[in-house]
């Protein structure tokens, strides 16, 4: 589904990703962990198509498409979703109006019929029920005045509504209390299916107690330096990221 090969990315002349490789298959949940400044958020932003990143080498295939050639809205319509670490407040744009416009723009791109207001509302109610979210946030402007938890809930709600093939969660757990964390995890677990994949970017292992990953990768200094199963996350929690550094040093000298 997603194949990243030798990805090099610079921001303002500084190299952040230095040859990243990652393959994600349908149905899988990959966790990407790593210390601050390792390039975790850069990866999410580059995949979603944010401007300001210079891709100096590498390829990203998404299904049969060259992802890096697509505009952000085309990537979304192809089924890629990024849950933002810092969801943007947009006063004056109604949440429901925005989501209906977004969903219909995606459907139009894919050659599907657009939903009318009744069909859209039916879909919204269904998703809200599953996620245990009150419909109050629908009537407000996008994220405007939302608490940190509400913003993350809104991201998960958008994900549920847009039904992406690949969802990237960029530190969705940061700043959440345990109830909000569980809600986010429930939303993801509910959506897990054989044809949908997730990349869960996180600094802490805590979220992975609730979203059990198939693979865990450690991103450090712009590369994936270690991969393993869910137990790798526990080891990291126990030993800290310095442990990775210590493990890497002898390998380097032995090469």
């Amino acid at each position, binding site marked *: 589904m997603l194949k990243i090969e030798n990805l090099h990315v610079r921001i303002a002349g500084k190299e952040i990703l230095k040859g990243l490789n990652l393959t994600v298959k349908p149905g899988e949940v990959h966790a990407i962990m790593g210390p601050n400044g390792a390039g975790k958020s850069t990866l999410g932003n580059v995949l*979603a*198509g*944010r*401007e300001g990143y210079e891709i100096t080498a590498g390829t990203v295939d998404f299904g049969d498409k060259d992802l890096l050639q697509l*505009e*952000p*809205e085309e*990537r*979304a*319509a192809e089924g890629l*979703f*990024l849950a*933002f670490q810092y*969801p*943007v407040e*947009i*006063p*004056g*744009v109604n949440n429901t109006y*925005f*989501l209906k*416009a*977004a*969903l219909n*723009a*995606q459907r139009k*791109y894919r050659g599907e019929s657009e939903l009318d207001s009744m069909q859209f509302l039916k879909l919204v109610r269904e998703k809200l029920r599953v996620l245990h979210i009150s419909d109050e946030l629908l009537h407000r*402007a996008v994220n405007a005045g939302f608490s940190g938890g509400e913003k993350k809930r809104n991201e998960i709600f*958008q994900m549920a509504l*847009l039904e992406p093939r690949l969802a990237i969660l960029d530190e969705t757990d940061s700043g959440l209390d345990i109830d909000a964390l569980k809600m986010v995890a429930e939303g993801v677990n509910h959506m897990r299916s054989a044809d949908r994949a997730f990349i869960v970017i996180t600094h802490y292992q805590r979220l992975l107690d609730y979203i059990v990953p198939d693979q865990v990768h450690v991103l450090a200094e712009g590369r994936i330096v270690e991969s393993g199963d869910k137990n790798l996350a526990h080891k990291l929690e126990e030993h800290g990221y310095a442990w990775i550094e210590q493990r890497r040093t002898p390998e380097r000298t032995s090469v």
Partner: protein
Amino acid sequence: MSAPLLQELERGFDALPASRRDAAGLAAARRAQLAAALSDGLPGARAERWRHTSLRALERRAFSPLPAAAEVDPSVLAAIPAPRIVFVNGVFSPPLSQLDGLPDGVSLLPLSQALQQSDAREVEFLARRFEAADETFARLNAAFALEGLLLRVAAGVHCAKPVALVMLGAAAGGDHAVHLRHCIELGDGAQLTFCEYQLAASPQAHLLNSFAHLHLRRGARLDHVRVQGEDAGATVLTRSDAVLGSEADYRRTDLEFGAALSRHELNVALLGQHARVTAGGVLLADGRRHLDTRLNVDHVARDTACELTWRGLGAERGRVVFHGGIHIRAGADGTAAQLSNKNLLLSANAEIDTQPVLEIHADEVQAAHGATVGQLDETALFYLRSRGLPESVARTLLTLAFCRVVLDGIHDAGVRERADALLDARLPQVAA
């Protein structure tokens, strides 16, 4: 040697219908104001209050001050419900107007009717003299205006239906100068929603000089919406002078997206304690449009308040000029003044000049002002696109949101929806 614009008006003055021009004992006052306008001329580049708005191109043009009848397709008024009073090129149109259905205590009539009765007291606002050398258009209005609206709401009367004033410009085989003078008075505790439209019925390049006096007595409340959607060839000069008594509550919203050149002077005098003005506007300058809004809020009495929120958009070769003047006089303690002017520059060839000016002579005041000129937030743009919205749609949505904050202040739901619809219809053209 005065400018062609003034010469042509001077020639026309003697041809005005004398029965109305000289009614109510105003003959001498009108001639005096014309003479003052001619002698001082149009404000030039050195006139501080006109620094960013040049009249050089305008003064070379000639406009006839005589009435210009024109046929109008009534469908342009379809979205404006009764009661309404309609002027076409400054001429009162009985068939397009609908003046009935007003509650007791609300009187609405054309100025010409009061002039015919030559009732000096009824039209005493017409005798006001304008002393400043740069008040040329007010002077011309004082000299030429024979028509306008007289709207009075008696003390304690709440008028549930919005009253509309419609000034239509229509092609009339030449360029005309239209002078209209309005007076809106609310008695103690009276309430009214008033909508003012400056619209085009057909393409033309007239000059509209519209001047409104607004008087809110103790505890009166006026919700005032003005929409300036004139033809792209038209010139619009608007002046609104409001006087607020104690506890009066004046709320107004100005939406401007038309004309080649539009200048609006909004003067609000807060004369009574606890008087309050909440005003906002949206200025959409695309094409080669020049929009100039000049606020002058005068806090005279103590414990008065103003909240001013303007949004400007400069696209293509458009130009937005905003001056937010707040004057807090000695003794006006307890005053709260707030001014926000945010602008979006959507093109490298557009220009925006904004100038907030606070002058404070009292000690105990709360005053805040902010003025910004920027571009759309790239992060917000990316957020919307990452959900699937095409870039052009995302830009329009953000631009609309930027302006909508102002329209949210309109109290009457029907009026707000109409203003929203006008903005929705215009913005994709501006933002794209």
